[in-house]
């Protein structure tokens, strides 16, 4: 009569304990990579140059600034990838936002004081970025275009429009407030890093503590289940691509502020870096798993590799090899973990 069952009944408990340990370690692999890389560069730096790598505030800040743009793109991509989608258009949405922010700041500066002109520029960059995000969402949720194809199309459209608006060149901004936003410091911390940290905290909250985040995981695991639970899945998907575009837009605005210029190709090399950050951070491209903190670690891994290799005078092209190797190792760890029946969230 009774159906006595327990979750431990499937495996020998000692075995499951060691498996659980492996799974725990696998879940933290991005942080482990990061620690190993930092130890490596710290050792190298002390042996070769007799100075510290990590504990130099110049190096630490440079790495943080390096990580800002790919991390912002990766934050939005974390949500999209957890839901089982992908957004290939973020790099050029970022470029488009950078160009728009630059133009709008200059244009508004003709009639408004610099601070107001900056606000107009930031708002314009973010709002225009939402356009391609909205189209992505409609294509994928209503017209059932596969995310890879839909966002690849938008990649081309955003790229073309950004280059057209920029006239094929970079658009310099002359606005003292905007330059201060991109290069200034508060209590010694770069402002763009502070903004990014606050945004990371917000995204972590949204993904881990709200219904929106919970539904994102559910859609990635089983879209039918989400539909039958009464979740408005098409609306949710539209919001995900809007969020992704907003993150890219913020990346573009901060880029324009940092370099006091908008460039259509601002985000071009960052698309793959941002997806790599999400994957190294523990998300599966099949959907259903991933965390914001993992993505942060993934973005830092890439930034440390890129900055560190330059720091130790290795030819910069080695960074592509190094990042590629880390991605492959990360996916292999993920698959091993799955085989062991690991926790997927």
């Amino acid at each position, binding site marked *: 009569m009774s159906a006595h*069952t327990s*979750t431990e009944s499937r495996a020998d408990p000692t075995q499951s304990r060691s498996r659980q340990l492996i799974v725990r370690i696998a879940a933290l692999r991005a942080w482990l990579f990061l620690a190993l890389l930092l130890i490596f560069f710290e050792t190298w730096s002390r042996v070769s140059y007799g100075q510290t790598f990590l504990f130099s505030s110049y190096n630490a800040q440079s790495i943080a600034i390096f990580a800002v743009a790919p991390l912002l793109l990766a934050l939005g991509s974390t949500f999209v990838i957890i839901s089982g989608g992908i957004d290939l258009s973020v790099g050029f949405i970022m470029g488009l936002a950078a160009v728009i922010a630059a133009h709008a700041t200059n244009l508004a500066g003709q009639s408004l004081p610099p601070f107001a002109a900056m606000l107009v520029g930031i708002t314009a960059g973010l709002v225009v970025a939402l356009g391609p995000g909205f189209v992505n969402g409609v294509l994928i949720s209503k017209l059932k275009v596969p995310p890879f194809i839909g966002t690849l199309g938008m990649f081309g459209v955003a790229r073309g429009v950004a280059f057209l608006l920029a006239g094929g060149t970079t658009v310099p901004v002359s606005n003292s407030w905007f330059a201060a936003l991109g290069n200034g410091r508060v209590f010694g911390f770069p402002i763009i890093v502070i903004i990014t940290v606050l945004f990371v905290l917000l995204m972590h909250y949204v993904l881990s503590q709200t219904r929106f985040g*919970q539904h994102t995981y559910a859609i*990635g695991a089983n879209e039918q289940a989400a539909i039958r639970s*009464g979740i408005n899945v098409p609306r949710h998907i539209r919001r995900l691509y809007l969020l992704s575009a907003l993150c890219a837009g913020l990346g573009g605005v901060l880029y324009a502020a940092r370099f006091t210029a908008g460039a259509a190709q601002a985000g071009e090399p960052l698309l793959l870096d941002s997806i790599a950050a999400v994957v190294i951070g523990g998300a599966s491209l099949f959907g259903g798993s991933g965390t914001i903190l993992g993505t942060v670690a993934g973005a830092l891994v890439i930034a440390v590799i890129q900055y560190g290799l330059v720091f130790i005078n290795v030819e910069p092209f080695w960074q592509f090899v190094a990042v590629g190797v880390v991605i492959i190792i990360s996916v292999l760890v993920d698959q091993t973990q799955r085989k062991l029946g690991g926790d*997927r969230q």
Partner: protein
Amino acid sequence: MSVQSQPQSQEPILDVRSVSKRFGGVEALKDVSMSLYPGEVVALAGDNGAGKSTLIKTISGVHGADGGEIRFAGEAVHFASPEAARAHGIETIYQDLALADNLSIGANIFLGREPMKRVLGFIPVLDRPAMAKAAKETMARLDFHVNRLDAPVGRFSGGQRQAVAIGRAIYWNARVLIMDEPTAALGVPEQRKVVSLIQNLKAQGRAIIFISHNLQDIFAVADRIVVLRRGTLAGERKISETNPDEIVKLMVGG
């Protein structure tokens, strides 16, 4: 004509009266009637294409009926959607269970209607402790004792996952549970667990429609069998007054 395992005086929780459903030129259901009493398990049997799925989809609000009427707790009802049927307490558990494998039992129970609480008085966050507590209590009602409430349901076995899907339905006070082939994908020990789960639900006074191809399972848990053949009611029998041979004859005709 009608056979019931419950006393006549009790009102049926679900009463399907002469329901018909067409898809274009195909009459998927012709004048089918069946009733279901609280605490009763009715097996719905029939060959492929007999209309079992159409009948349960009509009851659960996926399809509208073209003719006849469905009465729930004595009132005529028209469900425009599965959500409307669910709001009345009719819950369907499909074969694929519709679980999010990466989420915990609690998160699955509350999927789409998660409880929230506030931290520091103003930041709304998911109330995970409440979800875990409800999950533990609900699963205990099914005699299913869970040690790890944070584990994703993808880690559980087939029978345990079935229990989670049933737990989700009973948490939301389902009075009628429609189970589509709940034992089909399971090994023999797991099938037994599901059968005892169904007996447990029956003891709680819930009414169950149980679709199965497996006559052994049907005879193990059902009070009555309703047999469909080519969209019509081929017959209805009390389990105590029939045998597998007779049911097979009703299913295939002859």
